[in-house]
């Protein structure tokens, strides 16, 4: 049953809100012109309503100065859980849910004590697995800092991707998100950097925040304006901390490789993880003359010496 109720009678309680963000200006303008067309959903009685669905509309109505809004009031015979799922169904028809929204929905249905059949229906509506341990993992997303939650929603991170923030304090999460925004990194690249930071911290038995500070500067201001260079610098600093031998060996190999004169026809490459102890020679052959030139390159004494030194380093 739909009734018009006074906006003042609806409490500011947002315990049923699951959407990531309230829609802004356009909705308020439209409501100012035409009023709220799509009814809100509320529970309670006149003078004391709690909003169950329609948080954006409610916020816009307040902004536009509308005094009454249409609302569907929870019928007596219907449980609050059932009422909530009915409203959810209306949302599900029109959109997909982000991970943080799924987490809030599961938390709300848990709080409402959804019976198992209703819980299964909820999971189907929001496309979440029903297994209790996965539900636990999804709702754990709400323990991340607000910055991380916003980041997860903004970039549509999956549960697996969002696990990169596990084990980080709120402060660490905030700093990493600030860095990610500043450098424009996300996904696999961000995960790699977080892994390196945690690895460096674990190795030196330091909090991750100290590693973040040491490679980005205390406030993050030291990150230069050139994003690519800044990212390169951060990675370099982290790699030196986590892979000292590998970094040292590769730097030695790079120096030695400069002594090899390939005249643009021959390039040297090697496996930088050092797992394969070999130097690869990539030769470009476009004509028969190139073969003669390449043979000359290898007959140069300096080149032979460079290769010999490189092989010795990579095999040691």
């Amino acid at each position: 049953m739909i009734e018009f109720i006074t906006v003042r009678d609806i409490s500011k309680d947002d315990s049923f809100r699951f959407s990531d963000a309230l829609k802004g200006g356009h909705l308020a303008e439209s409501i100012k012109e035409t009023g709220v067309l799509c009814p809100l959903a509320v529970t309670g009685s006149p003078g004391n309503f709690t909003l169950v669905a329609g948080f954006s509309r409610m916020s816009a109505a307040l902004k536009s100065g509308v005094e009454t809004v249409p609302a569907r009031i929870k019928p007596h015979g219907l449980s609050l859980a059932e009422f909530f799922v009915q409203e959810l169904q209306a949302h599900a028809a029109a959109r997909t849910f982000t991970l943080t929204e799924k987490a809030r929905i599961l938390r709300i249905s848990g709080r409402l004590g959804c019976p198992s059949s209703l819980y299964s229906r909820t999971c189907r509506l929001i496309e979440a697995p029903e297994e209790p341990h996965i539900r636990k993992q999804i709702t754990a997303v709400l323990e991340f800092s607000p910055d991380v939650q916003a980041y997860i929603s903004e970039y549509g991170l999956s549960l697996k991707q969002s696990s990169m923030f596990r084990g980080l304090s709120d402060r660490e999460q905030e700093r990493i998100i600030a860095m990610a925004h500043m450098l424009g990194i996300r996904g696999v690249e961000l995960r790699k950097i977080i892994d390196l930071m945690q690895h460096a911290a674990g190795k030196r038995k330091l909090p991750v925040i100290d590693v973040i500070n040491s490679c980005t500067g205390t406030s993050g201001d030291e990150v230069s304006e050139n994003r690519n260079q800044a990212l390169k610098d951060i990675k370099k600093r982290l790699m030196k901390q986590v892979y000292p031998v590998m970094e040292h060996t590769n730097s030695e190999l790079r120096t030695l490789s400069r002594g090899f004169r390939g005249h643009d026809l021959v390039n040297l490459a090697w496996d930088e993880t050092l797992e394969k102890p070999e130097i690869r020679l990539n030769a470009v052959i476009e004509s028969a003359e190139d073969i003669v030139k390449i043979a000359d390159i290898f007959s140069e004494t300096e080149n032979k010496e460079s290769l010999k030194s490189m092989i010795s380093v990579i095999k040691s």
Partner: protein
Amino acid sequence: MKFPIEHIYVDERSRGHSITRRVLDRAEGIPVSYIGADQLDKLYRGMSLDTGKRTLVLTVQKGDMVKPCPGTSKPYLCCKYTVLNSANHCPMDCTYCVLQGYLERPCLTVFTNTDTLFKTIDRVLSMEPRRFFRIGTGEFADSLALDYLTGFSADLAGYFSSRENCVIELKTKADCIENILTSPPDRVVAAWSVNPVQIVSQEEHLSASLGKRMKAARKCQDHGCMLAFHFDPLILYEGWERGYAETVETIFSNVDSTRIAWISLGALRFPPDFRRGIIRRFPETSIVYNEMIRGIDGKIRYIRPARVKLFRYVFQRIRSFSKDVFVYFCMEPPWVWDSVMGCHPETNEELDYWFARSMNHRFPGVVCEKPDISSYTAEDFSASRTM
């Protein structure tokens, strides 16, 4: 050494099997529930590994009970070991244990349909009568940790004593050897995973101390068993040189080197996603913070220079005590073999042959005829090993 089992679940299909009867006879005071096969998944669902390590399930194995060791991909060399899938999981709790992430079900599981197991082994052995088989139960479980309940080691020792051209390796970090000591020893290789005292106490939770393992090894040797030791995983930590030197010395001062069938060396390695799992379950550990890379097979392992250094050191210590004990690497590429030993088997099959050759030379009678490399490298061999 007994482990804190809090509940035993018996699959209805295991009722009446000899192992089930034995476990129930010996499981005094432990609550027992019978459950249908269809309820097993429900039992496993949501169960934590910590609870699983205190919960024993007796069930039947519907899949392969005898299979080649999963090993790893080329260019890493594997030894063509044969695995008996007679149990899953382990009541001990080693930080680095791959079973934490490898097995789908969290519970300690013992498969009771041993008749099927023995029939399958007969079939596998008969398919290649000229081949020497190393068979073991220690791949997906600790071979002896639950032996005080199952007594399965005695069944295996009895079975293998009447077979030829094979040995059964019982690999453990416990000291539950009572059943071995009352069983035929001739084809039993009693094997222990070993690590320095510091690693045992910090990373191998609930396992027997190195001293207890050595005492048990000595008893098995005196009973007539062959022995094996596995330095796997070798772990880099501050003071590792001294730790491993002492461990090698402890082995050779406690047992007769001529009774050691083989010693393996394998450096710490695990699947990529596993690292976070270790940190989550064992936040105090520092083993995951070394210089590790993703190897060619996708596993995370120490960088090659670090592995070579570690292997060289331990290998040389072993050689200072015994010139001829068979030493091999688990999952290492040929160039690492070359750097440490100066040679490498060309293929996994050749490594398998090297084992047979060494066993024939050092333990006369265990291998029924002088091994011929062609029996190990024949082209149809791989196909026949699908079992």
